[in-house]
């Protein structure tokens, strides 16, 4: 039984193929570039190629992410919060708290042992607490994005940014530069500021170990360290975590498919 999870995000589109709800047989990623449907189809082709399957072998397709309704060839769509929680618990069954620092919003979720969302909270007011903040800082400080984290890790006295506006925070950073604050301290300050904002969300839903970080920034070691330092607990950062939402969608797709196959109703009836 092959189910597919497709996470149609604003920046990139991610997909996974799951066999019998247990084993990931393929993962793929493509930039979205404003064309979610095309990116989704590309990812499907990549997945099929990697798993050596025909796209038709996929029995159930569940979409998630901002463009989850835009993709026509789906059986079901679920919210990316629901999906990333399921995905995080699939990857690490001990996880009870998931924090997702995405490009435009951050979310914290407390989850059950099956990955069901018990409570969640996302930043709504202002985007200062989201990953895009890091991109903008990189641009402003003229540091390539992939060098942000290694440089930040050299920090000894990080300078935390207090402004709640992502744009005005840049002014604060520039002031720090003008005041000769060392670059690593400014960079680490950026990650710590993000971590602190995430921590407010996390405390709001209640923190229980294990805590997992998902979303794009999970690849940044500085982000993981900053979060560990702020939370005062180890953070699970699975290498597959950027695909957590796609994985969760595939997992939910699998359980839905199982339920449907117990009934005589043909699959087409479940299409939305």
């Amino acid at each position, binding site marked *: 039984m092959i189910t597919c999870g497709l996470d149609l995000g604003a920046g990139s589109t991610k997909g996974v193929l799951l066999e019998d709800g247990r084993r990931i047989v393929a993962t793929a990623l493509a930039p979205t570039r404003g064309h979610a449907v095309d990116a989704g189809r590309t990812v499907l082709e990549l997945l099929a190629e990697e798993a050596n399957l025909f796209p038709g072998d996929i029995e159930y397709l569940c979409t998630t992410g901002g463009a989850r309704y835009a993709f026509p060839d789906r059986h079901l769509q679920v919210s990316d919060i629901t999906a990333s929680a399921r995905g995080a618990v699939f990857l690490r069954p001990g996880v009870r708290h998931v924090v997702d620092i995405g490009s435009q919003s951050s979310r914290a979720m407390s989850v059950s042992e099956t990955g069901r969302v018990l409570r969640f909270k996302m930043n709504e*007011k202002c985007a200062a607490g989201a990953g895009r903040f890091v991109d903008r800082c990189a641009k402003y400080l003229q540091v390539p994005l992939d060098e942000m984290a290694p440089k930040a890790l050299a920090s000894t006295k990080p300078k935390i940014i*207090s*402004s*709640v506006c992502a744009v*005005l925070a840049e*002014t604060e950073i520039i*002031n720090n530069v003008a005041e000769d604050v060392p670059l690593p301290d400014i960079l680490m300050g950026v990650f710590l500021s993000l971590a602190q904002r995430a921590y*407010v969300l996390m*405390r*709001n839903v209640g923190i229980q170990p294990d805590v997992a970080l998902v979303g794009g920034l999970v690849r940044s070691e500085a982000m993981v360290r900053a979060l560990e330092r702020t939370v005062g607990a180890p953070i699970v950062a699975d290498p597959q975590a950027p695909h957590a939402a796609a994985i969760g969608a595939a997992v939910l797709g699998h359980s839905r498919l199982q339920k449907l196959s117990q009934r005589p109703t043909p699959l087409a009836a479940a299409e939305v």
Partner: protein
Amino acid sequence: MTHPGEEVEDGPTSAREQQRRLVEEYYADLADAGGPRKPVAYMLVGGNLTEIVRSFGYEVVFPEIVALNCAIKHESLPNILHAEAQGYGLDVCGYVKNDLGLQELGGKTPFGRIPPPDLLVCSFSGCYVYIKWWEALAEKYGCPLFVLDVPYMRDERPRSEEIEYVVAQLNEFIALLERTTGRSFDRGELRRMLAHSRKAEEGWVRYLSAGRRRPSPIEAYFEAVFYMFPINVLRGTAAAADFYDTVDAEVTARVRAGEYPVPEEKVRLVVEGVPPYPSYRTFWDFFRRWGAVSVAATYPKVGGLFDQGFLHDPDRPLESIAEYSMAAYVNQSWGLRRRLIASYAKEFEADAVVIHGIKSCRSFTAGQGDLRDWLIHEQGIPTLYLESDHEDPRYFAPAQIKNRMDAFFESLDRRRSTVSLPMVGA
């Protein structure tokens, strides 16, 4: 000049020393958990009932004042973040979040631990959030909650039916205190306390009216804030009454010695609004750079409009308490507030008005933009509007505030056609 607990930079004076000692003693008494402690009533500053509860042997805690003490000592943010983790949103009053965060964290303040309440008195005078705040405390502590409903002040003087309503509630409050303490109401004791209050209030009014002098020997906003402590917290005691004698003597001495809040008074201001406590000193410095002195301010009136004649009267105890409660500054309708500010500007010969809006305080702040408009366009008074927060350091942007203040004082300066730009590094 300094504030409760801050290091003195400009050399101590007797009033400041005495004030600091009063603050320390007050917190020390509260923290004294060793012996049998006095029962504690939590109360709000505006239109408070200090004398009544003190006459029943209660000590009083004002969480607003605790909150400002935390903020000025840069200790408010952890409390605020703790409250946000409990679910209080970004836009909730900073005082509320500081207090409820602090309560959850065990009552620790920069001056010592404050005890939990035995009685909650919600003097609902001038701020709706008071009700919400006291409901939360009541749910946490399960102690009796008394809501004193104080009608909003819409006429120059309270109306008879309003006074009757408040007095009826005060009598019900006294009956509650008799039940909770097992003591009977001692009218004589209340009168003695009100006599102390009266003396303190008259001294406080004398101090504030010194701003009429040119140059002003007092700083009616920044300095007054710490001289407010006895009038708001210790009212009803002899210590509060005596404190203002010391202040009197100090003001007289300053005038004699020619010592003023700034070396050369260049701009006389009326200041409206709650101070940005987390950046109190930085904010004050922005004024001093320009030789600006507050000669009158509305914030020192949050505890009572004594200068408008709303003084406690031992011969009319409950009636005068009712009138005093209604006349709390923030309980004044906008029409009354506007007229008061304009009258300060006129009587204290101010050059301009500075309004400091508080992001998380709707009671004080909603409508200050309209006030600004009225002062500029109908009263012809140059007015500057600034915005930050009274508790939350995240909302004080020094560069932005300084920029606005510099621009404002530059333009005031130029309008008087004196060219005196500060030099680089000034």
